[in-house]
C-alpha cells in the first residue's frame, strides 16, 4: 500500500468527509487525514502550518460549494502561498455546471500544483487513482 504522510479534505458535508476518509483507509497508508468544514477554515489552518514550517498536505480533496469561502476562493488564496512542493489538489464536486469546469481549466493552467476535476459520486477506484503524490 502506498504511503502518504498528510491528506487534507475541505468539505462542509460530513457525509462526504466520512466517505472520503473511509475510502482512503482502504487504498492508502496515511499518517494524518485532516478535514476542514469550509475554504476559510482550511486556508487559515494551512497558512498557519506553512508559515510555521510545519507539514502541509501532499494531497487535498476540495469541494466547490461551501459557505463562507468556497473552493474557488480557497484556491485564490492558497495558490498565492509560495509553496515550492507540487501539491495535488483533487476537486470533488456534485456540480455539473460547465462554468465550474471552465474555471477549473483556468486554475489548472495558472499554477505549478496539480489540480484535477472529479464529479461525485466518487468510488474506491477513483480515490485510489487520484490519491498519490504529485
Amino acid at each position, binding site marked *: 500500500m502506498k504511503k502518504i504522510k498528510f491528506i487534507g479534505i475541505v468539505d462542509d*458535508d*460530513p*457525509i*462526504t468527509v*466520512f*466517505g472520503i476518509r*473511509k475510502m482512503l483507509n482502504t487504498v492508502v497508508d496515511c499518517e494524518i487525514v485532516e478535514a476542514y468544514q*469550509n475554504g*476559510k477554515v482550511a486556508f487559515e489552518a494551512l497558512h498557519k502550518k506553512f508559515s510555521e514550517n510545519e507539514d502541509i498536505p501532499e494531497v487535498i480533496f476540495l469541494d466547490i*460549494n461551501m*459557505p*463562507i469561502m468556497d473552493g474557488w*476562493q480557497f484556491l485564490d488564496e492558497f495558490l498565492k502561498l509560495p509553496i515550492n512542493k507540487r501539491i495535488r489538489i483533487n476537486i470533488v464536486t*456534485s*456540480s*455539473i*455546471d460547465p462554468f465550474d469546469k471552465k474555471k477549473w481549466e483556468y486554475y489548472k493552467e495558472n499554477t505549478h500544483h496539480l489540480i484535477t476535476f472529479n464529479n*461525485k*459520486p*466518487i*468510488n474506491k477506484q477513483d480515490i485510489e487513482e487520484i490519491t498519490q503524490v504529485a
Partner: protein
Amino acid sequence: MLIGPRIQSTSYLIKQLPTLTVFIDREFKIMHASDKWLYTFGERSNTIFGQCLFKVFPELSIKWKSVLNECFEGKSNPMGVQIYEQNEQKKWYEWSNTCWFDENENIIGAIIQINDVTEALKNELELEKTKVQLKQQSEISKTGRWEYDIINDEITWCDITRSIHEVSQDYVPRLDTGIQFYKEGYSRNAISMAIFEAQEKGKPWSIKLQIITATGKEKWVLAAGKPLYEKRELVGFTGTFQDINEQVVANIETKKNEKLLRTLVDNLPLNVYVKDINSKKILVNKAECEHLGVKNEDELLGKDNFDIYDYETAKRFTEQDIKVMTSLVPILGEEVISTDKKGRQTTYLTSKIPLLDGQGSSTGLIGISLDITNIKQKEKELRNLIDVTSLQNKKLINFAHIVSHNLRSHTANFSMLLNFLQHEEDEEEKETILNMLNSASNNLLDTIENLNEVLAINTNINLKKKDVNLFDSILTVESNLKDFITENKGEIVNKIPQKQSLKVIPQYLESILINFITNGIKYKHPDRNPVLSLKLSSNEDYKILTVTDNGLGIDLNKYGNKLFGMYKTFHSHENARGIGLYVTKNQVEAMGGKIEVESEVGAGTTFKIFFNEKN
C-alpha cells in the same frame, strides 16, 4: 421783248401767292416764284430766275423731267415727295404741277406747287406705328375688339375677336348669335344682363365669363363693353374681348394645388409648421394646433419658441432652428424632449428642413414633428417586460442549476453510502453508515422543502396584494421575535409613519420582515449591541423600505454576486442556512420589486427593499 413787261406785272401777283409756287417755261427755266418759295429755298433767290430748275435743285429726280414734259403736253401728273435739308432739319415737300397757259390757251410751261408735308408724314408714320403696336398688343394679350351698331343692327368683330371665338375670318356675327357663344347658365345670363343694364342705365361692363367656341372648346374670356351715344341717343356698343383662359385655368390650377397642399398638410398625422428667419411660426397645420392645444392657428402664427415652451426647451429649440438656417443642413428624425409652459413633457421625433430663396440662402424652415411620447412609454413598458422575462429566464436557469446541484449532491451521497453498506461487514460500521444514510435522507427532504418554498413563491399567482399597515406589521414581527431580540440585546427603531400602508402580499411581507430583522440581529458585531432601523421613502415607481443594521457587514466585492444565492452563507454562524435571503429576494421579486444592498465590513449593512404597488 414783247413778253418782258407782261411777265413783270404777272410776276408781282405771283410774288404774293401764299403757297410755295414756281413757274417754269418749257425749257425748265425758272420764270416766276412766290416770295414764300424764294424764302423757303433761301439764298438761291436773286440769281435763280432764268436758270434751269434741275440745275438749281440737282437732287430732283430725272424722272420728273419727263413728268414735266408730259405737263407741257397738257397732261399734268403728280410728281411725288422730295426731301429737302435745311438748317440740319429734314423737310418733306410734295411737288405737284399744272399746265401754264397763255391767253391763247397755249401751254408755255408748268406751274409747280410745293407743299410742306413733313408734319403730315410724321403723323401718318405715328399712326402706322400705333396701329402696329395695337395689333401686336392685342395679339399678345389676346384682346380683340368689337362694335355693335344699333341702327344697322350690325356687329363687327376684329380678327382677334374672331379667332378667340374660333370662327373663320369671313364669319358674320349677329347680336343673338354673339350671345349664344356664352356658356349656358351663369355666363349667358350675366352677359344678357350686362347688355340690358348698359342699354337702360348706360353702365359699362367688364366680367369674366365662359364661352363655348365654334369648335366646342370651353374658354374663359374677359368681356368688356360700354354703350355709345350720339346726340344722347344710344347708337351702339363697343368693347373688348380678351381670351383669359390660360390665366384663369392656371389660377384655378394654382388654387386647386394650394387647396390640395393645405388639405394634405392639415390632415397629416404629423405636426407641420413653417418658421420665418426669426424662428416665428408663419404656417401651422391642424395637428400642430391640436397638439399645442389651440383652437385657431392665429393663436400660433407669429409666435416663437419662447411663447410656447419653457425657457430651457425654447432655448434649445431656437439654437437648433438657427443651426439649421445657417448651416442649411436639415435635421432629420431626431428625438427631442420638450417641456411646455405647464411643465408637460413630450418626446418628439423631429425634422427641420431649411427653406431656401432663389439665391440659395435660407428664409426660414419647415418643421415636421411626431409626438412619440406614447410610443416611448410603450417602448419603456416593453423593455421592462423584456427585462422581467429575461430575469425570469435567468432565475429559472439558476433554479434548475440549484435543483440539479442540490439533488445531485444528495444522490451522490446515497450512492456512496449504499456502496459502503454493500461491502461492509463490521456491524458497528454498518450502523454508522445507516445513520449517515438517515441524515442524508433528512437533508434531501429539507432541500426539497426549501425548493418547494421557492417554487411556491414563483408560481403562486393566487396570492393577492392587499393594503397592509407597515408600522403595525413591524410591531407584530417584533413581538413574535421578542425572545430572540431580548436575548441578543437588540433594538428595533421603527421610523415608519404610523398610518403608512403598503400594498403587498401580507404573508410575504411578514416573511421578509422576519428575515431582515433576524439577519440584522444574528450577524451582529461582537463589540456592540445590534440596532436595526427601518424607514420608508418613495420614488416614482416604488415605495422603498430601508433596513439599516450596525452589524458585521459584508464584503460586497467578494460576496456581492452570491449574497442572494441559495445555500450561500458568509458568516461562520451556526444558524446560517443560506436560504433566507434567497427566499426573501424571490418574494420581493414576485411582488414586482427588487432589493439593493450597501455594506461596509465592520460597520453594518443597509438593505433597500423596493415595493411595487402595481399588480
